[in-house]
């Protein structure tokens, strides 16, 4: 433990997966995820990955075969991005309904159309309501570590849900960083063997995936809802156990659900998901304003209490987000507003939609946002609604030429 190696993000994630020795890996190539499953293919070819590797016809059947294998009691893994995650969506929703743990690495990429292979979070947010745990990673090390933590939470018999370990496409998958890779021994000490509550065992016949009439469906859905909410505590215990064993801490003071950086007593905060937080940290380090950075590590379960605590003394929050729910506003912002409602604390929340489809987010742009957010701190809660959302990178000069006109 403790030895760092220089690895590309996709390769590093593959090594992390290898340390869990999944029984079945099933995957289909898609940019920018492909490096993960290419590396796993090589590991299988070299005899290092001892489980089965299914080279399937589509992401649809990657998810489907993971569901079948998980139902048989196997530890399973797949990886995907964007359109591939969309193609998995139908079976993934059933995986949570059937309470089958699967772990997927998602190299986040925008959804068509227009087609784009570059990074944003529209793919992850499109699966928001599927009953899956969703982790986000700021850097390659966190992406590596989230794989282990995702398995431990997803396979916990009291949770038993699918989990997505998101990492930003290209920004994390295609960058080399010094990382510590857990060995199989270390992972075995951290991640217990899966003990499913039921399997497709011929000696003990079970019917899985029965259909539910109105008198049962509500309860089934509530059970998923309840398990996903309870998973917040399990994540907290898992992050703590991870820190104890590996020495890397991910927001222990906020139950492992949220991390903060910068001045804990600042009036001004900026909030972001994933790799953008690294740039935010650089900006804040040099900025004259005292700023707190708030980084949710998960979007499901939604960390309401942790965010309320993290924003307790904050007067003005800027949400920097790489997604939007067209016709409303960014989901990251609207959910934060919803979380603060009724908390007795009502900071100004301004939303900035940026970094869509790989558009570079510069330090200067973030510094401008910090200035705006700081200026709003003294003006009290904003009275406007949609108007609060800003698209700082929108090029109005080319807008008339787009398909909208």
């Amino acid at each position, binding site marked *: 433990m403790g030895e760092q190696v220089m690895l590309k993000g996709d390769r590093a994630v593959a090594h992390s997966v290898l340390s869990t020795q999944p*029984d*079945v890996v*099933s995957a289909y190539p898609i940019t920018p995820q492909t490096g993960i499953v290419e590396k796993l293919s090589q590991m299988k070819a070299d005899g290092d990955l*001892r*489980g*089965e590797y*299914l*080279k*399937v*016809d*589509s992401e*649809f*059947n990657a*998810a*489907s*075969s*993971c*569901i*079948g*294998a*998980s*139902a*048989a*009691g*196997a530890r*399973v893994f797949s990886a995907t991005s964007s359109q591939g995650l969309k193609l998995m969506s*139908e*079976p993934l929703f*059933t995986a949570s309904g*059937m309470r089958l743990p699967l772990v997927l690495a998602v190299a986040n990429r925008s959804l068509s159309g227009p087609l784009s292979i570059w990074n944003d979070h529209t793919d992850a947010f499109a699966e928001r309501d599927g009953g899956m745990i969703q982790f986000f990673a700021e850097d390659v090390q966190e992406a590596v570590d989230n794989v282990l933590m995702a398995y431990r939470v997803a396979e916990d018999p009291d949770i038993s849900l699918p989990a997505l370990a998101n990492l930003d496409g290209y920004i994390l998958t295609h960058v080399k960083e010094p990382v510590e890779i857990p060995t199989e021994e270390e992972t075995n000490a951290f991640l217990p063997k899966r003990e499913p509550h039921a399997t*497709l*065992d*011929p000696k*003990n*016949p*079970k*019917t*899985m*995936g*029965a*259909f*539910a*009439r109105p008198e*049962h469906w509500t309860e089934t859905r509530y059970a998923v809802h309840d398990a996903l909410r309870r998973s917040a505590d399990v994540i907290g215990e898992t992050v703590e156990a991870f820190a104890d064993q590996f020495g890397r801490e991910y927001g222990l003071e906020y139950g492992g659900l949220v991390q903060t950086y910068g001045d804990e007593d600042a009036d001004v905060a900026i909030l972001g998901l994933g790799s953008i937080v690294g740039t935010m940290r650089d900006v804040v380090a040099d900025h004259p304003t005292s700023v707190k950075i708030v980084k949710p590590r998960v979007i499901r379960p939604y960390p309401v209490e942790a965010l309320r605590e993290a924003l307790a003394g904050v007067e003005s929050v800027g949400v920097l987000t790489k997604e939007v729910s067209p016709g409303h506003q960014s989901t990251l912002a609207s959910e934060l507003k919803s979380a603060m409602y009724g908390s007795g604390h009502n900071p100004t929340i301004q939303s900035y939609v940026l970094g869509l489809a790989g558009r570079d987010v510069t330090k200067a742009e973030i510094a401008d946002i910090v200035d705006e957010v700081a200026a709003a701190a003294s003006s009290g809660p904003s009275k406007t609604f949609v108007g609060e959302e800003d698209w700082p990178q929108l090029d109005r000069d080319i807008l008339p030429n787009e398909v909208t006109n």
Partner: protein
Amino acid sequence: MSSMEEPAPPEPEISHDDDLFTPGHRACAGCGPALAMRYITETTGENTIISHATGCMEVVSSPYPESSWGVSWIHDVFANAPGVGSGVEAAYRAFDAKEGFEEYENHDDVNFVVIGGDGATFDIGMRSLSGMMERGHDILYIAYDNEAYMNTGIQRSSATPFGAATTTSPPGEESFGNDTNKKNMPAIAAAHGCEYVATASIAYPTDFKKKIETALEHDGPKYIQVSAPCMLGWEFDSAETVNVAKLGVQTGMQPLYEIEHGEVTNVMSLSERKPVDEYLEKQGRFSHLFAKEDGDEVIEEIQAFIDEQAAELGLDQ
């Protein structure tokens, strides 16, 4: 409609001696596919895991918290039963390969079975089935073919025969019903390299069960397509299911054969193939062909299609 013959007594081979697909399910009286399910579990026995596509047989057999299945059984979505089955089979291969994994024993003798209707097989699940066959999973796929989307209310599938009325291929001023011939799925399965492919009919249970047994002797993917009439969608008296299925075989509409290693074998030949009218006139879904002007031309087209198919298979003795 012409006069109906006295229903023949059921085949003596029908047995009711296992509890792996139990009564109490919600299938219609006279359901052909429900007979197919019983013949399947009677043959595969209890050492079986079934992955089942969405469809009539899934819905009637698994209303939570009840189940008709005495074998391990999973349903996920409409299009992915072969993908799910692939994962189950791969998991057991992985368990068996694990050193020192003592709670699992060797699962070589487990029968991995995937079941889908014609819509799940010929249409929406074809990619999933193609992948399962191409990758060589040790799985028996059984398509129960009732020639339309019966579960959603009798819509046309690519297994629907030429001239048949469904709710999405209705006859009308400018329509004689479905305007395409049935997709040749057995040939598609054989082209994937399945060592064993067969067609069967619920009217010939001994033959169907023997084919399941033969299929299970082969490692790798295998495909059986069983003709299973739907009294509701085909519009015939629910006492007539087996007779209609039998007429399907006797007219050459549902030829019974095997394809082993890509070669057609064991064609169940007919000493006196009956004209297709005898099959069509028993079913309301073809009644417009007898009522409509020029309907006889469509019947001739159907007969010509059958004749051609019979010649290719060497169906006539």
